[in-house]
């Protein structure tokens, strides 16, 4: 394999790695939108708070690993319940602009809180998470953390699918996603479904936060990953899980290819901006996302 091929595959693999992380964050946004029709623009701040909580339990308080992970899961679930109960439940039925601004404010609130408690210095996860070596196969470096990311993402998505298909509350969530009024008529406790939705969303962000923190370190830059999560969700279609995953991979690959190939020609900022350019062009071609449902409006 010659040099250019290796570079290409290297960029592809790092693109897929980062794309999976965006896809996981986007899944949270998609789940919330499907059930509650609220565009969750808060993954930035929510990722930050999940990452800092995970770091706090693992490193700052130094719990043993299983207890640290269980505590992080519990804490983020409580935050998810809290956000839904006090910020989103009063806004059921309001127009979409109110929920956009509200979730943005949730983002800023958690950004402020994490900066207040943990400051601006980047924190690192311990060696067993962040310091994994890179495997070299045929001259191509695959970070071991990425393989773990793929495995855990696949397990998470399978777990989500089992949850939706085989459990009562998963079924309730699917019915609510389809039509809220029908769900209420069937006797489903819709507010509990909304709560569960946000808790699942926050747990997905926790998993994303572990991997992003392992790759990049836990710092205030994480909220940019949240912005990309929202973009990926919008690109893939706000109602579609496979759309979020595919769009995540696409954006990750676009970002890594743009950074790798065009950085000298178009300047260093192209890696950050390429997803936004793609998003802007997509708003002409497919404004509802790759697999989103098109809105048909009648008077």
């Amino acid at each position, binding site marked *: 394999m010659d040099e250019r091929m290796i570079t290409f595959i290297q960029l592809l693999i790092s693109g897929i790695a980062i794309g999976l992380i965006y896809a996981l964050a986007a899944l949270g946004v998609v789940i919330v939108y499907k059930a509650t029709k609220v565009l969750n623009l808060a993954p930035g701040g929510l990722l930050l708070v999940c990452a800092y909580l995970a770091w706090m339990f693992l490193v700052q308080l130094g719990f043993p690993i299983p207890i640290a992970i269980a505590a992080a899961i519990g804490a983020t679930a409580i935050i998810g319940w809290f956000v839904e109960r006090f910020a989103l439940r009063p806004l059921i039925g*309001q127009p979409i*602009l109110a929920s956009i601004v*509200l979730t943005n*404010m949730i983002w*800023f*609130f958690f950004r*402020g809180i994490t900066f207040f408690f943990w400051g601006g210095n980047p924190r690192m996860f311990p060696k067993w998470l962040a310091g994994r070596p890179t495997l070299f196969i045929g001259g191509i470096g695959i970070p071991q953390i990425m393989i773990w990311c793929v495995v855990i993402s696949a397990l998470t998505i399978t777990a989500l699918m089992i949850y939706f298909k085989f459990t009562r509350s998963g079924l309730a969530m699917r019915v609510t996603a389809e039509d809220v009024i029908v769900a209420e008529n069937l006797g489903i406790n819709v507010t509990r479904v909304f709560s569960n939705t946000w808790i699942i969303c926050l747990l997905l962000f926790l998993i994303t936060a572990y991997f992003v923190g392992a790759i990049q370190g836990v710092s205030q830059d994480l909220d940019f990953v949240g912005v990309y999560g929202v973009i990926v969700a919008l690109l893939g279609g706000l109602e579609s899980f496979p759309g979020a995953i595919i769009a995540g991979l696409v954006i990750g690959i676009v970002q890594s290819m743009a950074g790798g190939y065009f950085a000298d020609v178009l*300047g260093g900022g192209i890696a950050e901006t390429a997803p936004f350019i793609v998003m802007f062009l997509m*708003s002409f071609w497919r404004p509802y996302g790759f697999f989103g449902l098109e809105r048909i409006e009648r008077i």
Partner: protein
Amino acid sequence: MKGRPCGVFDVKYSQDRAILRTKTHWTLFIGFLILLFTLPLFLNAHLLSLGTIIGTTMIAMFGVQIMVGYTYQITLGHAGFVGFGAYVSALLTHHLGWNFFFVLPLAGLGAAMYGLIIGTSTLRCKGLYMVIPTLSAHFIFFYLVNEVFKKWTFGTEGIECASPVFFGFAFDNDLSYFYLVATMTLIVGLAAKNLMRTKCGRAFVAIRDNDVAAEVMGINIFRYKLLSFAIGNFCAGISGALWAHYITYINTEFFPVLDTIYYVAFLIVGGMGSIMGAVFGALFWRLLGEGVNYVAPFLDAVLPMNAGNVISSMGLIVFSIVTIFFLIREPRGIAHRWELFKQSYRLHPFNY
């Protein structure tokens, strides 16, 4: 139907349509103008600077109000357009040496052009999906300034803007710049309010209420959506140019994504759908920021363990909690409360 106080009757149609209807309105307005133009002589530099920033924010808020409040085109990129106007003005005055007052409308037009390019996506995007092109407009603005036009904008180093000069009189101190900004705010505010009383404004409101029905009625919604983007971003451009020449140095750091979301958030806090809402939103935002800056050092002393983190994060926390509170408690904003107050005053001692 606004309640008229007892004894006030309109005898002409022009009286019915007027903004200032009664002698009391005129007296209050002229009193306010006198206050606005004489009070600055007694204020110190800090308050004058606050006033100037409130003025420029208000001009940009008028733009957001036209776009979001009147036409419901959700624009999550406003700080990018403000920055675009600021950079156009900075480039034209720095590299070509043109006079600021000639450049000011050009800055507005530049931002309006950028807004038009972004706004062409309204052909296919509606409602919530407008987040996509407008949010990317902000980041594309960063990219354009930092990378594409780096030769002229000096990238991340920032660019210097000279103080405006009008036939030899330089607006280089706080007092004179306050007068400039106050005049511009009044002009833009009156223009925006009058815009809403024209055919164009009625088309905007029709699009906001139901754009499919508006198209059926014969309004060319694509044209009016583009017009709304152009006018709203023209205001943003003017605001950016005024602000840039006030602080005489700009950089993309001055137009963060935070601000672009604050524009829409404080528009909702102020009240969507009325010019007074934009005024209240801008006032509330900047005054709350001043309050946080005032209180932060005290909090810093009280909470020593997190010293240094308080000042940066307090703003975020306070703004977000206040906005969430307003969204939950008074979604129609401060302007609605103001209207209720005026009604209760007019109808006193009756309830309705």
